[in-house]
């Protein structure tokens, strides 16, 4: 941003300065600034999307054209998908991954809601220390916990089951942090009124807090679902023998005798598809839910 670009906004003030509405502010902006915004954001957006486009473009090329660089894959071919379909049990993988991601997201939402409510609605002893206990999980990487947790899951007899991939991930600091902020944004009078009414803390949570957090809970839930859907290392460790979720199946196309790029891209494309659709459908709500919380 150079001073030259900024100078005009100083000099020419075509509308009354005190007009506070959005429309007036935009009018006052020289068109050049908006153009600059479009160019920068457009280029950045394209750079972000190119790999994703290339993933689907490669997956739709005929096997003999796999090395082609034409921007549009022509003739279109679903042969890679057919090959992937034959190599791995896609419906089963989709169902398993869906069950895992849903359970993990719901669990994280619930533990996060309870903890966030506790932190936001009360002042209590050891509050800060306990909050730190949640945050400090970011200091403990997966590589530190994997061996002891693997041993415990083996004692519980849930290795190589979807349950084993779910149970250790039912609480996440991100949900606690965000829901604490969300609950805080609810006017305190509302919680006080519920207490005056003689409601218990538990019923206040479900009749006052949750209905007020609808969009925020949905947005966070989707985000947690996406994270769980994309999770790789924990399932990789727990489901060693069965490889029963999508992210693990990708590896069957990467072999010592070379990578089968076509089917690999097809499976990767399918692994991303549900999440992309979910996001495209709910984009407005996800962003709004996130933004309205004023995560800060």
């Amino acid at each position, binding site marked *: 941003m150079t001073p030259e670009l*900024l100078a005009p906004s100083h000099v020419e003030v075509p509308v009354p300065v005190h007009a506070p509405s*959005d429309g007036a502010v935009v009018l006052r902006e020289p068109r050049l600034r908006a153009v600059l915004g479009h160019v*920068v954001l457009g280029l*950045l957006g394209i750079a972000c999307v190119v790999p994703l486009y290339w993933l689907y473009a490669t997956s739709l090329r005929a096997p003999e054209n796999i090395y082609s660089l034409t921007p549009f894959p022509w003739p279109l071919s679903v042969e890679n998908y057919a090959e992937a379909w034959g190599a791995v049990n896609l419906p089963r993988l989709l169902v398993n991954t869906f069950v895992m991601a849903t359970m993990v997201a719901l669990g994280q939402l619930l533990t996060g809601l309870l903890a966030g409510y506790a932190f936001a609605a009360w002042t209590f002893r050891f509050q800060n220390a306990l909050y730190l206990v949640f945050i400090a999980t970011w200091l403990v990487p997966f590589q*530190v*916990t994997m*061996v002891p947790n693997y041993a415990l899951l083996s004692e519980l007899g849930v290795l190589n089951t979807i349950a084993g991939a779910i149970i250790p991930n039912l609480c996440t600091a991100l949900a606690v*942090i965000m829901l604490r902020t969300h609950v805080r944004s609810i006017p305190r009078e509302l919680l006080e009124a519920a207490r005056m009414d003689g409601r218990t803390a538990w019923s206040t949570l479900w009749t006052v807090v949750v209905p007020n957090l609808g969009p925020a809970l949905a947005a966070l839930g989707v985000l947690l679902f996406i994270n769980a859907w994309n999770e790789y290392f924990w399932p990789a460790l727990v489901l060693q023998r069965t490889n029963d979720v999508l992210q693990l199946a990708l590896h069957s196309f990467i072999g010592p005798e070379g*990578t089968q790029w076509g089917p690999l891209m097809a499976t990767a494309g399918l692994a991303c598809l549900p999440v992309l659709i979910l996001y495209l459908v709910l984009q407005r709500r996800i962003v709004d839910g996130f933004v309205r919380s004023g995560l800060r």
Partner: protein
Amino acid sequence: MTLLEVPAPPRAAGPTTPAAVTTPWWRRVARAAPPYLFLAPGLALLVVWTYRPLVSTVRLSFLSWNLLPTSPARSVGLDNFARLFALPDFGAAIGRTAVLILGLLPFTLVVPVAVGLLARRVRGRAATVYQAMVFAPMLVAPVAGAAVWQWMLDPRAGLVNRVLGTTTNWLQEPASAQLAVIVVTGWHVLGFATLVVAAGLAGIDSEYSAAASLDGATRWQATRWLTLPLLSPTLSFLSLMTLLLAAQWSFPLVNTVTHGGPSGATTNIYFLLWDYAFGSFDAGLGAAAGLVFFLGFGLVALVLVRLTERLSFHDS
């Protein structure tokens, strides 16, 4: 967002004031219990799945054990730590992790702030579309992302070399491999960071900027002296997250594509831990390294939090 907050001003104190002295102890316990009960499920999960393993890691760090259930673990005192600090890999991995963190900061701070500020100018439908495009990589599973980037960076048939007209073997040369890891990881986390910044910007009252422009401030002045300081809690949250999680974010890529190579150029601290445990089956050394990283990161994070608490600027 501040991580260590000063307790909120005391709420309407309710019935706990002088009467509390005479109420029986079980009444007082029952009255104080709710927040702890609400915290219990989350805490229990963390104790079992995060802190119990951490404690066993502490124990393991004083033992020599090859992870086989049949072979006994031997107590070796501080030997693992002595070996760790003598290993050249250890310092090198820390240095590379620092490079990774610094390399990711543009993706988690600079670009998201630029996008957030520019999106305010563009507005409307177009802004939504651009934001959706920037968020998209966040949705791609790390392994799928790693696969498509490996494909695009292929030295012979890859899109990147064909477009740039180069013949660089990106993932097999030490300098470019680290760069590739930074860019690909940055591509992945950019969307999340942008979302967080957008949320932070939305939380800033636009009346401040309006007031500033009434006072004759230019846009840049308003941004520099009002918006950025008000955004500082968000920025400190993102820096803390980058600091603590950068090595984790890059792990799927390093593990599936570069395997820490070429000649260790992409071996960061968490890959080193993985390698000690499952590459050389040296559980004691891995645990010692894990513990050192935990304490080191804890210390750095604490300093960062204290520092931002002193520097940030609160809108109250």
